[in-house]
């Protein structure tokens, strides 16, 4: 046990030793097992490769001199097929040449036989650490790449958004022409000289349909134009029951598709709250959409509103898959998203937090993997009329340090 602590080797490390000398191999295996480290063994290069095919390994300890496929060859194969696996070579006494060749071929290091066990353990540890480090780097790079991809996708949507008003115009103008044309044709149709054309009824019907189609198209574009309009920040007393109902309605369809049950309860002690209803609604919509997305089919989402001292807490709890610990502090960052690019903007929670802070409140998250996530938003009961500019963390921290009220 003491020795283990000293070598500091992770017990879960996946190790493989490859050597044709059985006695040597067995001794190493036994001695390592004594320290509580399990290690796989192979008697030849071919065996080594077939083991690797089934089980991925972190570190392979590989003898160079073996009958059949020699160590360097095996190393090349390993590096080619499993580039993440680190290889430590064991060379004969005088054959440093092999060792150097091995390093060139991508081995982590080489040791000359006879070897000291502690020395070997140390090298294995280093090799493993390198692997872990590289794994982390890779994950980090992946994360960054994903974020960038998200950003590109969001920017694409945004550029589309900037076009939206123009696009509406481009659609509305031809629509107007079609409409006038149809109207004109109708006029002609009603003239006396047209009274006796045989398919008059059909024409009328077709023109009616066209006018209706244009009407529908117009409604759709006008709806888009309507949403371009900015809403100014206004504070008013918010009817929480109504607000919750509205927001729940908005996501009802999506939730229904996934068979998610949404329930809500408002503590009567909450009373009233004065804040910006549009912003509060946006916060709730964002949290609920997130919850719906995170929750699997047949799950449940609970919304609770309860008083906390002079504040009001909005709690959105889902029974989804939860957020891994390492992501918990990232979820409020811009462009962090677990959705495929294009589906979300990656800005939802960032915007939510910004809004909550603007409203003078704070947002917290709590999550248990596999069980679900709880978002807790606390807002002041009364939003001050002279809206304070959003402070960021610097000033807040400094204010705390210097106790500026």
């Amino acid at each position, binding site marked *: 046990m003491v020795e283990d602590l000293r070598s500091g080797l992770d017990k879960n490390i996946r190790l493989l030793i490859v050597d044709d000398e059985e006695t040597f191999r067995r001794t190493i295996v036994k001695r390592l097992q004594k320290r509580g480290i399990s290690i796989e063994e192979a008697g030849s290069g071919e065996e080594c490769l077939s083991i690797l095919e089934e089980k991925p390994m972190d570190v392979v300890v590989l003898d160079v001199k073996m009958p059949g496929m020699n160590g360097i060859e095996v190393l090349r194969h390993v590096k080619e097929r499993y580039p993440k696996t680190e290889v430590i070579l064991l060379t004969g006494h005088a054959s440093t040449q092999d060792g150097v060749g091995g390093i060139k071929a991508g081995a982590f290091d080489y040791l000359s036989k006879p070897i000291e066990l502690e020395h070997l353990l140390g090298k294995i540890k280093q090799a493993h650490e390198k692997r872990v480090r590289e794994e982390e780097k890779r994950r980090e790079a992946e994360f960054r790449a994903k974020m960038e*991809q998200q950003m*590109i*996708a969001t*920017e*694409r*949507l*945004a*550029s*589309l*958004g*900037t*076009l*939206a008003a*123009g*696009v*509406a115009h*481009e*659609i509305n103008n*031809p629509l107007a*022409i*079609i409409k006038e044309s149809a109207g*004109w*044709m109708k006029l*002609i149709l009603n003239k006396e*000289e047209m009274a006796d*054309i*045989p*398919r008059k009824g*059909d*024409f009328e019907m*077709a023109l009616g*349909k*066209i006018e*209706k*189609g*244009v009407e*529908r*198209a117009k409604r*759709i*574009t006008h709806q*888009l134009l309507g*949403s*371009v309009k900015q809403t100014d920040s206004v504070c008013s007393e918010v009817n929480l029951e109504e607000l919750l109902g509205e927001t729940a309605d908005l996501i009802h369809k999506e939730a229904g598709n996934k068979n998610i049950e949404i329930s809500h309860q408002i503590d009567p002690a909450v009373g009233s709250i004065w804040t910006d209803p549009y912003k509060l609604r946006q916060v709730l919509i964002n949290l609920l959409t997130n919850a719906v997305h995170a929750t699997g089919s047949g799950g449940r989402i609970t919304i609770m509103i309860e008083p906390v001292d002079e504040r009001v807490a909005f709690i959105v709890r889902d029974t989804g898959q939860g957020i891994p610990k390492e992501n918990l502090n990232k979820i409020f960052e811009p462009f962090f998203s677990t959705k*495929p*690019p*294009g*589906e979300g*903007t990656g*800005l939802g929670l960032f*915007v939510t937090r*910004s809004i909550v802070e603007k409203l003078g409140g704070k947002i917290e998250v709590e999550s248990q993997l596999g069980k679900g996530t709880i978002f807790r938003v606390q807002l002041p009961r009364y939003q001050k009329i*002279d809206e*304070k*500019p*959003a402070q*960021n963390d*610097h*000033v807040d921290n400094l204010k705390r340090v*210097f106790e*500026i009220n």
Partner: protein
Amino acid sequence: MKTSLYINLQRKIIFIVLLVSFAPLILLGGTIYYQFARMYKNKIEEQIKYRARAQAEAVDMFLKERIALLSTAAHTHSFSDITNERELSRILSIMNSKGGAFVDLGVITNNGQQVAYVGPYDLLGLSYYEQPWFGEVMSKGVYISDVYFGYRQLPHFIIAVLRQERQPVWIMRATIDPDLFGAMVRSAQVGKTGDAYIINKAGVYQTRPRFGGKILSNSGLNTSLFGGGTTIIEQKSGEDKELLYAGSWLKTPRWLLVISQEVAEEMEGLLATRNMEIAIIVFGLLAIILTIVLTTRLFVKRLRESDAKMNEMNAQLMHLDKLAALGKMGASVAHEINNPLVVVMQKIGWMEDLLDEEDPQKSKNLEEYRKTINKIDYHLERIRKVVHNMLGYARKMEPRLENVDVNETLNQTIDLLENYARINNIDIQTDLAPGVPIIANDQAQLQQVFLNLISNAIDAINKDGLIEIKSRKIDTHIAVTVSDDGPGIPRDRQGKVFEPFFTTKDTEKGTGLGLWVSYDIIKKMGGTITVESAEGEGTTFTVQIPIVLPQKE
């Protein structure tokens, strides 16, 4: 509101940092000064005490010598010898040559009659019987008088010894030269304010002090304050000056030798040190204040800038989200609008069919109908194209490789923006080289870049202008340039255009991410994107896309 917050913060930081740095400095300076002053004063006191003791000893010695001289003269001469005036005068001159300081000599009989006298005064025959010292001498044998005026009406003091070996006893009396004595005492004076004098028990000056008084006037010192040995007291003088007195009692007469010194003078060295220390501290404090104020200002300024930047960034991100939501909605609108359009298209087609069935000669109205239907067709196609372009742009979100015709992509992008440009009276001219090969690339992302560049150009021009778009095959690259004749980008900002959140547009228009994202996309493709701009003339963006030919299936 916000400004005052920063000013407040700045004030607090300055105040706290100043407090923290001032307090120890001042405390340290004070403590050191205090300790130093105490040591300095001790030393001064020691010194003055030492001087007083030494001077007292010297005076004691002087008086003892005089007594010894007088006593020797008295005991080595017979009464008759000594009353001989010539002899007496000889003795006086001998005594004066051996240390001297005697003004006169006299011999007094036991009934107080001065029977012999040499000296400058005419004192022969005077009777001292009534003088207080006469009794003292008679009883004690040796006597040193306090200073008094006596017959000569000059302040002086006398030493008298009694010759008592044989009866009748007689007294030998000598007057000590008060000037000489005084000068001797005064030799202990130092500095500008130092004084040395002798007072008697009653505090009366026995020698002339340097300041503030004549001989025999009262010194104002309370001698009872001076104990055995040498004592130091500090007292205010008449002129309100702090004076330090060291007093040492003489052994023979009960006189007090006093050495005084003005504290201020004694402390002059200390004062200089103190001034220097204060100067150093003040200088240090000034330096600290200056540094703190400057660094705090800089710090708060930086903080403010970074806050402003953060806030700006947050605002841009929020705006980005809004636009993205709008974009999403736009896409869904484009999608939804398809349904009614399909209906309209069908009906138009049907009406065309119906027209064919009608008698062509029937009326001119049918011709009118045909014309109108053609118009509707044309405008339907317009809408379809817009919707199609928009959906084409909105749909592709996942990056993927496909066969891309750069010219075609450019045309599609221009289609998206043409109306926007036309409305603002901006002409888009294209010069697309026909030989540009089909490449394997991500069409959607390429289009995103083009869209950003062209819509940037439109926004840069704002109104009335020309945009030129060119494509060329240059060796292993396809070069696409987008030039506008807008106001251009100032030289100092050109390097920043590809930075995130850089924007010259108002926030309502841009996201500040367009060029950055474009840069990122092109970089990932292995290409480059560069900007060239001259203020007042326009801006040209050049995108170089590496030619990667699609793999043959």
